């Protein structure tokens, strides 16, 4: 009987649930995004016009795609600091190898994807088998790639590739009513996001989260950790490659394209409520984090903050936003047991999860039997564990 009433909550409960989701870290980023977008539109009403807004999405697309790739690595318990330089390397490869010859576009695109996958493979294998922390491996990869780009170009732009290739990032389907133009970047972003959501729900995607949550239990439950881990690095390098293709079109070739993208992506992912260290987070929130970040930059542009202290304002706001998402996490962990986002785990009745959170100290031992059975995005037992991590 109780099950029936739970399946059909009243309007009030729904609203309360929605409100709770919005102030929870998983939802906070959406709330932040809405606030920022409304603020931008208030400062500059033309921003809210569909044709302007679609251009905004077009320009966030590369960052959002990089954030989606970074999400899989972070939720799997690692970092990928090489993403920005992969973007840079791909941009330079496109500029140098395609040149003005459009016939070379497809072969070079294939080469770029292969190169991206290779970088991810190398990162993943070194992390998995040589047991080097990913922080170091990808930092090394970042420097190696930047050095290679510097060697190849001498640090200067070489010239843009053929316009046909740049059309992917710059052009779109024109003549559409209301939005005027549907940029290819937006189409690609939607496809990537849909693939990511689908992939995250597949058993393999859930295994990534389980591995990030507790590598030991994941291993005991039969996960091939090396392959799962390596594939997350390949996903991130490939997403950086896609972002590189979009950026060549959007901006053009320059060794500074992609600079800082790894940190923007990590910040976006954290802003999206994904826990550094792995095991929890939602890919859509990570993408929303990228949108929130870019909206923040745009807001500062529109608000006319002077260039000399714009960066300081940016930094302060990011610290506050991330701190908010961290504190709401902790508060929620102490308070309610599980906000049970509708549609995520409808089969889990809340009362079962509730008692587990309180004994924080004993969480570590409680993990083992629980986690492999339900490698859901938000396994309640892990919270206590994460709390000790955050507090120490």
């Amino acid at each position, binding site marked *: 009987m109780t099950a029936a009433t739970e399946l059909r909550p009243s309007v009030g409960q729904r609203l309360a649930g929605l409100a709770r989701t919005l102030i929870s870290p998983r939802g906070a980023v959406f709330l932040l995004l809405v606030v920022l977008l409304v603020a931008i539109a208030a400062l*500059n009403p*033309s*921003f809210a016009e569909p044709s*302007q807004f679609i*251009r905004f999405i077009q*320009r966030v697309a*590369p960052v959002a795609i990089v954030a989606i790739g970074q999400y899989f690595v972070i939720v799997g*318990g690692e*970092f990928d*600091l090489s993403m920005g330089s992969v973007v840079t390397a791909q941009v330079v490869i496109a500029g140098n190898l395609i040149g003005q010859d459009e016939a070379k576009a497809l072969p070079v695109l294939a080469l770029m994807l292969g190169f991206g996958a290779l970088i991810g493979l190398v990162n993943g294998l070194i992390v998995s088998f040589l047991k080097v*922390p990913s*922080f170091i491996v990808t930092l090394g990869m970042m420097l190696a790639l930047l050095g290679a780009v*510097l060697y190849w170009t*001498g*640090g*200067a*732009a*070489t*010239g*843009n590739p053929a316009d046909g290739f740049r059309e992917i990032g*710059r052009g779109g389907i024109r003549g559409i009513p209301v939005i005027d133009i549907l940029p290819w970047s937006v189409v690609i972003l939607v496809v990537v996001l849909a693939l990511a959501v689908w992939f995250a729900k597949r058993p393999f995607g859930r295994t990534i989260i389980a591995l990030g949550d507790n*590598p030991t239990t994941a291993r005991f439950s039969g996960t091939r950790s090396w392959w799962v881990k390596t594939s997350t690095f390949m996903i991130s390098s490939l997403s950086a490659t896609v972002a590189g293709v979009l*950026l060549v079109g*959007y*901006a*053009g070739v*320059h060794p*500074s*394209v992609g*600079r*800082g993208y790894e*940190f*923007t992506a*990590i*910040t976006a992912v*954290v802003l999206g409520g994904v826990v*550094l*260290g*792995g095991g929890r987070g939602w890919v859509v929130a990570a993408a929303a984090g990228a949108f929130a*970040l870019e909206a923040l*930059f*745009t807001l500062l*542009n*529109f608000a*006319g903050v*002077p*260039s*000399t*202290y*714009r*960066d*300081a304002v*940016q*930094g*302060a706001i*990011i*610290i506050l936003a*991330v701190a908010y998402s961290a504190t709401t996490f902790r508060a929620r962990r102490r308070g309610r047991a599980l906000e049970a986002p509708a549609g995520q785990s409808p089969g889990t009745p809340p009362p079962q999860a509730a008692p587990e959170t309180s004994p924080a100290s004993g969480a570590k031992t409680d993990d083992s039997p629980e986690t492999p059975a339900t490698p859901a995005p938000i396994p309640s037992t892990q919270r206590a564990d994460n709390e000790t*991590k955050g507090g*120490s």
Partner: protein
Amino acid sequence: MRRRYTVASAMVGAVALMTLAGCTTDPSVTDSSEAPESSEEASVEWFDQALFDKQNAERTVVPEGPEGQPWLQTINAELVDTAQYASTGAKKACFANASISNPWRQTGWITMNQQLKVLQDAGVISAMETRDAQDSDDTQIADIDYFINEGNCDIFLISPNSTAAMTPAVERACDTGKPVVVFDRGVQTDCPVTFIHPIGGFAWGIDTAEFLIDNLEQGDKVVALRILPGVDVLEQRWAAAEKLFDEAGIDAVDYFTGADPAEIKKIISDELAKGDVKGIWMDAGDGAVAAIEAFEDAGADYPVMTGEDEMSFLRKWKETGLTGLAPVYSNFQWRTPLLAAQKIFAGEQVPAEWVLPQSPITAEEVDGYLALNEGMPDGHYAKFGGEDLPGYPQVWEDRVVP
């Protein structure tokens, strides 16, 4: 395991915030000791009325020196005697270079090496040992000290990375009693035999701002795209332009772009969403194409624009037919240090401050420069001044960076 993540998370978080907060660790030519604390003070700090007036006057001076060889011409030269350095035989030059990390420096570096070949063939220079500081003050100080102690140098050529930080090292080089030639960015000492540079940043700012003011109405919006803060030659360009815009009632707003075309495009798109942008001012031409493309993508009218004599801008300027001006930070100055060395060893007088001509490329001249540099890559600079050197044009077209 968990502990590792805590540390790593903290590190990533810290670095991420630093980066996002704009502490880009790109050290290129920024000098923290000179970096201004706030924008209000900065514009006051960088503006120097005396220097502004000096460079403003130098713009109209007809340079002295051989016709058609601007790299040997001088403006208001005060000659100094170099008889004490006169000596025969081939000499070894030691070159402490700040970096070759931008297309302007690359172009100049190629030209310099071709000039070196000419002087080697003439038996003036035996060899040039070069150390590239890769935009790092510390590295360049070490480079200069290495040259002093172990370089066996007959002459020091120094292109300083930053002004204040490099001054003591340059003084140490002077103390060896061997001739020192400084070019491009300056140092705060007059111990070098000669300091070679084009007129300067204020002249650039005056040329560009006057052009925009002439072509725009009072109250029009100008977006100023600046590469980075804290470098004197760049700050002076903006300090002069900002002052003139202010006086003329032009609504100018400035942004730092790091020359990143994606960043430039975002800035222009946002500004276009806010309202009409009538003019674009740049403190260096890198990224000019992205700025123009932003207008194309937004379907807005082309702006009145000042870029630089980089080929990418000249080509886009021609292609779009916009109203433009290409200010020039004379790239041919890279030839002058070696030629100065030749004069010094011959005991000929050189100017204590060797001010080279610096004149913008106008709409009437652009076709000529485009034709002259037809095969050159986008990152090439039209006024590179190497047309009479061996290897022209192949070496510049292929970007043979030694």
